[in-house]
């Protein structure tokens, strides 16, 4: 029997305790992976973001819009392939008061060209372009609120007074995981024509596609230069920086969740360390005998660490095996359907899974450090004499 084999076999001596410890580690790993997945789903938007898209908005505040003629200025700038714009409408369905979804007034001719990861069947897109009151909605939203093609929908807005009627002309699906599948898009003209003259001809933000994604930041800076002398200065960012700066608003929560995901690992290490320490205490006499027949202190330490590492890894594997279906088919599905506007893609990713496994094994070994040190320091005479 090899030394490592002996360490593993030691685990089988108190099967009940090992089972409980594995369960404890597994629960901790499930919790850890769940928190990591929330963090990942929240922050991964920046990583999926299109590299060749630039968002131009008001420099100072999101409550003020840009003059419509800015669209033309952007369109004529170098390196710009396509331009579109949108206004935040802030709509909600009075019959589903608590459902949050994004509502955008968009330019029908260009919006789905610039956002080409949102796919609308060509027939539906054509119908919509010719229907001033038409709307295109995400498949997740349509399913949740039970909307079908041809339905008439009335929305209220916290920004634009009145009841707004729309007809569902199309349903979009997405090819990129980061794109919200619960957005409601309708004609910008329909909104604009209904507004009082003072509020008319404003666009919330302008989105453009560039032909040179390597220099997307410079193109943004060049765009802002054009509006530098105007009354309304702009801030143009590539989509990735835009998403990243948006996350800064939640930095405190993200930091807190990071800390909390570390706390569960400490709890797990304590559970593991406790189990190993108990085992070592009970086997003090045996270690004394092993030392007496010639094994070195290093051997004893190795057994203890090996046993703990195996235990940690075992718990990690069980935890990962539970977390995979729990997150991907339980929580994840629920979150994507109900909070799709915030978490369009909530799945356990491989990197986090491997991180969880590695940490379980690593912390297993670390948990054994103190008991292993004590076991290796035992004097043979004391160890053999001591009654556990």
């Amino acid at each position, binding site marked *: 029997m090899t030394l490592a084999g002996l360490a593993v076999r030691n685990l089988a001596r108190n099967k009940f305790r090992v089972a409980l410890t594995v369960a404890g580690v597994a629960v901790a790993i499930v919790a850890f992976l769940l928190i990591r997945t929330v963090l990942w789903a929240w922050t991964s938007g920046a990583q999926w973001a299109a590299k060749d898209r630039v968002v131009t908005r008001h420099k100072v505040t999101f409550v003020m819009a840009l003059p419509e003629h800015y669209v033309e200025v952007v369109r004529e700038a170098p390196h710009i392939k396509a331009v579109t714009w949108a206004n935040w409408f802030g709509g909600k369905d009075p019959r589903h008061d608590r459902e949050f979804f994004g509502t955008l007034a968009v330019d029908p001719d260009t919006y789905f060209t610039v956002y080409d990861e949102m796919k609308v069947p060509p027939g539906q897109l054509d119908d919509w372009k010719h229907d001033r009151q038409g709307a295109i909605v995400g498949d997740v939203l349509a399913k949740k609120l039970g909307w079908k093609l041809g339905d008439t929908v009335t929305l209220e807005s916290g920004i634009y007074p009145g009841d707004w009627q729309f007809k569902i002309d199309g349903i979009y699906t997405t090819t990129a995981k980061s794109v919200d599948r619960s957005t409601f898009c309708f004609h910008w003209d329909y909104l604009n024509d209904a507004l009082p003259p003072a509020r008319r001809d404003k666009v919330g933000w302008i989105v453009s596609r560039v032909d040179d994604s390597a220099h997307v930041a410079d193109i943004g800076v060049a765009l802002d230069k054009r509006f530098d002398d105007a009354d309304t200065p702009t801030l143009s960012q590539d989509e990735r920086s835009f998403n990243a700066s948006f996350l800064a608003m939640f930095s405190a929560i993200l930091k807190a969740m990071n800390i909390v995901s570390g*706390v569960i690992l400490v*709890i797990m290490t304590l559970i593991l360390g*406790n189990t190993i320490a108990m085992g070592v205490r009970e086997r003090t006499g045996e270690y004394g005998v092993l030392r007496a027949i010639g094994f070195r202190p290093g051997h004893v330490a190795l057994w203890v660490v090996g046993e703990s590492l195996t235990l940690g890894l075992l718990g990690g594997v069980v935890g990962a095996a539970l977390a995979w279906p729990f997150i991907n088919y339980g929580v994840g599905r629920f979150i994507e359907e109900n909070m799709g506007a915030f978490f369009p893609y909530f799945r356990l990713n491989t990197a986090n899974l491997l991180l969880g496994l590695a940490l379980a094994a690593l912390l297993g070994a670390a948990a054994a450090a103190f008991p292993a040190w004590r076991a290796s320091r035992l004097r043979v005479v004391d160890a053999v004499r001591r009654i556990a």
Partner: protein
Amino acid sequence: MIPIRYNLRSLSVRKATTLATAGGIALVVFVLASSLMLSAGIKKTLGSSGRPDDAIVLRMGSDAELGSVVEESSVPLILAAPGVKADERGQPLGVAEVVVVAAMPKLGADGVTNVTLRGVPDDVMRFRPEVHIVAGRPPRPGTDEAIVGERIRGRIAGLDLGQSFDIKKNRPVKVVGVFAADGSSYESEVWVDRELLRQAYGREGIVSSVRVRLSSPSKFDAFRAGVENDKRLGLQALRETAFYEKQSEGAAMFVGTLGTVVSFFFALGAMIGATITMYAAVANRQREIGTLRALGFSRRAILASFLLEAILLAGIGGVAGAAASMAMGLVHFSMVNFASWSEIVFSFDPTPRVLATALVFACGMGLLGGFFPAVRAARTSPLKAIRG
């Protein structure tokens, strides 16, 4: 009944095991108590912003001041509505304000956040006597001077005494004072001259909200009827307390739910840790238990004793965790409130209720985790145990 000293001494014999188990429980209680404290802090900050005898008037359909538009011409009508209290000079007590947000660089994080700018009239302190300057001086009326709330000060670039920020292009506003407002959300705002803000944000002739003091809280219904009956105005009146409750709903629920879900998983892990420890305690003390039984202690007394020991073990952790969480009272937590999309600084509020919940939670973990080991202890046969 077995004396409690027996349990205390048993716990102190195996210090490492007791500390590891209690430490795990302490961490769980810390996370739970902190999230409950933050949730309570959110409710307190936004709750203390509202007075029962104040009413707020917004545009019909607006949930927040940010999206609300009230015509200047409606303001005298609102102030003349029934139930509005008059000050000593016979003037109705009310304030019409402009509320916008500006994106400003967050210190200590990579990005910008939205800061609430409140355009206030010169005599705003007449309506809000609880607001007072704690550093610097009040702004001179009609100038480009601002005062900042105590909590947001120093968290955002440009928002500290003597610094300045751009309200619009080439229009710097100087911070001349810092104000406190009884811990309410006003302390996360920047107050500037109303006319200045109107010009800079194109809000001429409109305000965002009108607040009035009622001669008594019971006058609200009469006031609301007076404001809402004139349908042409398109206004709604809310009790200020109800308004702020709605403002805190989302964020408080988010933090509370997240904290509870996370704590549930953590508790499961720590409970398993307690079970392992208690099973080991029972196994190691077979002889003691047998002796106790032989001395005449009933099975029930043994069960009670071991349950008590488990609760003590968890209680130690609970007290340590709750005590550590008290330190969070010194920490300020800055996040974007979902209702207003602007940064509000919250504190952790250690209410007695939160601490009691945390302690009960810890004892519950001990009780559940110790139950099966205690049953095993109670089932010990005295004869077999003493014989070994």
